[in-house]
C-alpha cells in the first residue's frame, strides 16, 4: 500500500462533531464523531448523502452536488419565510481544534428582492471564501464519479477546481476573478453585437483574463502532472500491473503545445517532459489570441479561448477511456484518481484528509473492494454511506461506528 508508507509523520485531521440546522433533510442534528471508520446505514432518501454533502460543503465552500444553495435549505425553513441554514464542524488538527461554519440566510436587497446570503466563519470569525482553503480537506467518492471520465469536460474542470481550491486560497481568488471577467466579457460581447459600442471596453477585461487565466493554466498543469503520477501507480496496483493510466491535461489555450504523443500499446508514458515557458510569453500569446478572435467572439457572443474550456483526458492502453473505455475500466480509472487525490492532498498539506464514501463499494468487484477497505483502515477518519451494510466484511463492521439514518434523524445502531 504505497500511499501511506513512509509517511508516518503525517498529521491527520478528523471531524470531532457535526452540527446541522435546516440543512436538506435535517431539521437539527448534533453528532459527535470518533476517528476510524463510521458507517451510515439506511434506505434511500433518508439523509446519508446529505450528511456527506454537508461535510464536503465546509471543505469546498460550496456543495459538490448543486450550484444552488437554495436547494440546501430544509423545506420547512423555506416555508417559514425566514429561510436559514447552518452547517458547522469541529475539526481536530495537530495542535488545535477549529470550528468551521457556513450559514445561509435570506437578506433583503435594496430593490425589494431577497437573496440568499452566505457567511463563512472559522472560529466564529467571518472570512472570505478563499480563506477557507486548507482548513478541512476531504476526498469524496460518489456513485456518479464515473461521469468524470465519460461525461462532459465541465465536470472534469469543476472537479479539478474543487481539488485545487481545497488547498490554495490564491487559486480560489484567481478562479473567481477569471470567471467574473468571462461573464462580463461575454455580456459585453453580446452588447457589442446587438447594439454596438466602444470595443476598448474589452481591453481591461482581457487583461484580467490574461493575468488570471495563465495562472490557472500553470496551476492545473503542475497539479495534474503529480496527480497523473499517483493515479498511474494506483491504477497499476488495481489492475495487477496490467494497465497504465495517464491524466492528460488538454489546455484550451496552449501556445507551445508539445507535439502529439503517439500512444502505443504497451508503451508506458509516465510523464511528458515539461515545456518550460515563461509567464510573460504565455500571457502575450494568450492576449494576442483573444485580440485576433475578437470578431468571432462578438458574433458568437462568447469568449472562445481560455482555461474555461480546458479538459483532461484519461488515457490508458493507448486510447481515451472517456470515449473507448468500458464501464469497468472507467470505474477503475476514477478510483485511481480519487486515491491519487488522497495522496496528493497528504503531500501538499502534510495532513491526511477525511474520506467520504457514498455507496462506492457496490460499484466495485471483490478485489477492488478489499483493496479500498484495506486502505481505509489506515486513514484517520472515513465516513461511509450504504444501504447494505452486509457488503462490508464482518471484521470491518465490528471496528466501525454504526449509525442508522432515517428521515433526517441519526441513531446509534
Amino acid at each position, binding site marked *: 500500500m504505497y500511499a501511506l508508507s513512509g509517511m508516518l509523520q503525517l498529521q491527520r485531521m478528523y471531524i470531532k462533531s457535526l452540527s446541522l440546522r435546516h440543512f436538506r433533510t435535517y431539521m437539527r442534528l448534533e453528532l459527535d464523531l470518533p476517528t476510524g471508520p463510521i458507517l451510515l446505514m439506511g434506505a434511500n432518501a433518508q439523509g446519508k448523502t446529505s450528511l456527506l454533502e454537508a461535510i464536503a460543503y465546509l471543505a469546498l465552500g460550496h456543495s459538490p452536488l448543486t450550484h444552488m444553495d437554495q436547494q440546501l435549505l430544509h423545506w420547512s425553513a423555506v416555508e417559514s419565510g425566514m429561510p436559514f441554514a447552518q452547517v458547522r464542524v469541529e475539526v481536530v488538527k495537530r495542535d488545535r481544534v477549529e470550528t468551521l461554519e457556513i450559514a445561509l440566510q435570506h437578506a*433583503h436587497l*435594496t*430593490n*425589494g428582492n431577497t437573496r440568499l446570503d452566505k457567511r463563512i466563519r472559522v472560529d466564529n470569525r467571518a472570512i*472570505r471564501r*478563499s*480563506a477557507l482553503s486548507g482548513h478541512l480537506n476531504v476526498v469524496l467518492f460518489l456513485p456518479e464519479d464515473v461521469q468524470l471520465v465519460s461525461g462532459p469536460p465541465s465536470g472534469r474542470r469543476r472537479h479539478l477546481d474543487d481539488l485545487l481550491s481545497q488547498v490554495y*486560497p490564491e487559486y480560489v*481568488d484567481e478562479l473567481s*476573478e477569471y470567471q*467574473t471577467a468571462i*461573464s*462580463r*466579457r461575454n*455580456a*459585453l460581447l453580446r*452588447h457589442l453585437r446587438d447594439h454596438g*459600442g*466602444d470595443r*476598448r*471596453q474589452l*481591453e*481591461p*477585461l482581457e*487583461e484580467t483574463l490574461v493575468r488570471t487565466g495563465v495562472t490557472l493554466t500553470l496551476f492545473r498543469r503542475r497539479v495534474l502532472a503529480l496527480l497523473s503520477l499517483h493515479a498511474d501507480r494506483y491504477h497499476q496496483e488495481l489492475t495487477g500491473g496490467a494497465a497504465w493510466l495517464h491524466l492528460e491535461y488538454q489546455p484550451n489555450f496552449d501556445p507551445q503545445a508539445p507535439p502529439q504523443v503517439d500512444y502505443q500499446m504497451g508503451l508506458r508514458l509516465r510523464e511528458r517532459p515539461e515545456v518550460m515557458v515563461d509567464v510573460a510569453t504565455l500571457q502575450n500569446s494568450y492576449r494576442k489570441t483573444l485580440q485576433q478572435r475578437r470578431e468571432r467572439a462578438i458574433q458568437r457572443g462568447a469568449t472562445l479561448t481560455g482555461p474555461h474550456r480546458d479538459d483532461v483526458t484519461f488515457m490508458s492502453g493507448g486510447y481515451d477511456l472517456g470515449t473507448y473505455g468500458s464501464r469497468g475500466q472507467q470505474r477503475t480509472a476514477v478510483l485511481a484518481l480519487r486515491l491519487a487525490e488522497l495522496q496528493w492532498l497528504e503531500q501538499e498539506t502534510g495532513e491526511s484528509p477525511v474520506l467520504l464514501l457514498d455507496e462506492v463499494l457496490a460499484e466495485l468487484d471483490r478485489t477492488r473492494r478489499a483493496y479500498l477497505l484495506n486502505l481505509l483502515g489506515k486513514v484517520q477518519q472515513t465516513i461511509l454511506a450504504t444501504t447494505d451494510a452486509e457488503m462490508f466484511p464482518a471484521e470491518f463492521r465490528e471496528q466501525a461506528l454504526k449509525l442508522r439514518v432515517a428521515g433526517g434523524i441519526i441513531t446509534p445502531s
Partner: protein
Amino acid sequence: MGNAAVPPSVTQLIQTFSELPGIGPKTASRLAFFLLRGKSELALRLAESLQGLVENTRFCSVCFNVTEQDPCPICANTSRDHAVICVVEEPMDLLALEGTNQYDGVYHVLHGALSPLEGIFAEDLRIKELEARVGAGVVREVLLATNPTSEGDYTAAYLITRLKALPVRLTRLGRGLPVGGDLEYADAITLTRALESRQEL
C-alpha cells in the same frame, strides 16, 4: 400588500417607498403609517421637498454633479484648480471628498460604474463628456477616484485606455489600510494593495 383593510392611497405610498434603495416592504409600511399618524405637517413638508428636488435641481453641464445653478458652485469657483479633475462614480462620492477639505481641484461625476452584467456600458456613463473636457487642453491631471470594487477598478482601467493618449497626468486614489484599523485583521487583498502602494519616506 393586497390587503382590503389598507386604503389604496396608503398601499400606493408603501409601494413607492419600497422602490427606494435600502427599503423593504416592512420599512415602507412603517414609514407610510408614521406619516399617517396625525403628522400631516410632516407629510406635506416631505411632498414639498420632493417637488423642489425635482423642479429645482439638474446636473451641472460641466461636471454632472447635482446642482441648482448651472454651472455648479464648484465649477463656477475660480479659486479652485480647474486643471485637476477628480473622477467619481456618484455625487455622494464627491460629497465625501469635499468633506476632507483637502482637495481644491474640480470634479467629474460619471453617474455609475461599468457593469456589463447589469447592462451598464460606456455609453451609459458621462465618459464622452469627460474625454471632451480633458481633450480641451486646460487639464493637467485626471485623478481617478472610482470605488475600489471590481466594477470601479474596471471603470478606472477603461478610462485609462481612453485617456492615456491625451497629454495629461493620470493618477489613482491611493488604497490601503483603514485608519484606526488593525493590521492583523486586514484581509490579504487589502494588505497586498497597501504593500504595492507603499510610500518612500
